């Protein structure tokens, strides 16, 4: 994909301080988009800004808590002021886990996951879609998980949120398709980030055994799928889920 493919675009990537989001932010930026990457702390935001500066790109780092509507509004105002417009590409990547067997899962663990991983996407899409439908152009890409489709013991909350994202995205794709806005999902498998480094060694080994390609995925391999969906090449793709999981689950 060429370096200037996304030249006219403004991208907002949530959770871009590390892991998958960081890789997505750099890739979209490399392809020419003006990118706003977000972290939950000011320190994280300035590290994102420093990364963009090191790469000589026009990107910015912002502080954003996706569970707070006022924080979302503030971030979007900052994007508008600093990048010259509302996002034309929205990547909802921020996400957390609170694993527990349902038998032991507390209401709070359920609520936190649904709020951070699913309701956040409702909020961000609502906040960004108006300018996209008006412009008759826009790309929304939501990061789900293989677990949302396969299920996983200990992750009832996470799997429900990630499966919810897929149904949400299909519905929104139908609503705003007529306005030239596409909505798609990327469902990563087992990717080498802080999220999976927390797993116990035994569970890690067992998981690796279930992956035909025999290794963890790299964040860049998720970013490549996101870049495709954001690109002009994917103009006719909407309501779909791209699984990038080393063959761990074949749909």
């Amino acid at each position, binding site marked *: 994909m060429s370096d200037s493919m996304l030249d006219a675009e403004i991208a907002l990537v949530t959770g871009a301080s590390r892991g998958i989001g960081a890789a997505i932010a750099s890739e979209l930026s490399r392809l020419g988009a003006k990118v706003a990457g977000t972290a939950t702390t000011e320190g994280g935001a300035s590290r994102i800004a420093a990364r963009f500066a090191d790469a000589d790109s026009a990107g910015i780092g912002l502080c954003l808590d996706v569970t707070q509507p006022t924080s979302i509004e503030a971030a979007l105002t900052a994007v508008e002021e600093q990048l010259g417009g509302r996002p034309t590409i929205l990547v909802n990547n921020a996400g957390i886990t609170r694993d527990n067997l349902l038998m032991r899962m507390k209401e709070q663990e359920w609520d936190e996951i649904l709020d951070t991983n699913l309701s956040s996407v409702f909020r961000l899409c609502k906040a960004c879609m*108006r300018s996209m439908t008006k412009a008759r152009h826009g790309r929304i890409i939501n990061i789900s998980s293989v677990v949302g489709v396969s299920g996983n013991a200990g992750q009832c909350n996470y799997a429900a949120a990630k499966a919810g994202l897929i149904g949400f995205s299909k519905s929104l794709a139908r609503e705003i398709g007529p306005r030239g806005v596409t909505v798609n999902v990327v469902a990563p498998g087992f990717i080498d980030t802080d999220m999976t480094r927390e797993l116990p060694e035994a569970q890690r080994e067992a998981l690796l055994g279930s992956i035909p390609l025999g290794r963890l995925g790299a964040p860049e391999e998720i970013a490549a799928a996101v870049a495709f969906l954001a690109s002009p090449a994917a103009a006719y793709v909407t309501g779909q889920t791209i699984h990038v999981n080393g063959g761990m689950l074949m749909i």
Partner: protein
Amino acid sequence: MSSVEERVRKIVVEQLGVKEEEVTMDASFVDDLGADSLDTVELVMALEEEFETEIPDEDAEKITKVKEAVDYVNAHLG
């Protein structure tokens, strides 16, 4: 400054991509001007922006014709 009627008709023309002469006061957005459900929502949002006001959902549902939009704006502004 143009009248409320002119401003409303201009928005309808822009939002629905119809000809100015089609936008008569009696024209229904859906039946006469070919609006779909998303068009009507966007139309109300465009009115909100133009007249810097918020139109509650209960009221928005009742705005189905050009005249109703003009009347609404006249009744709630100025």
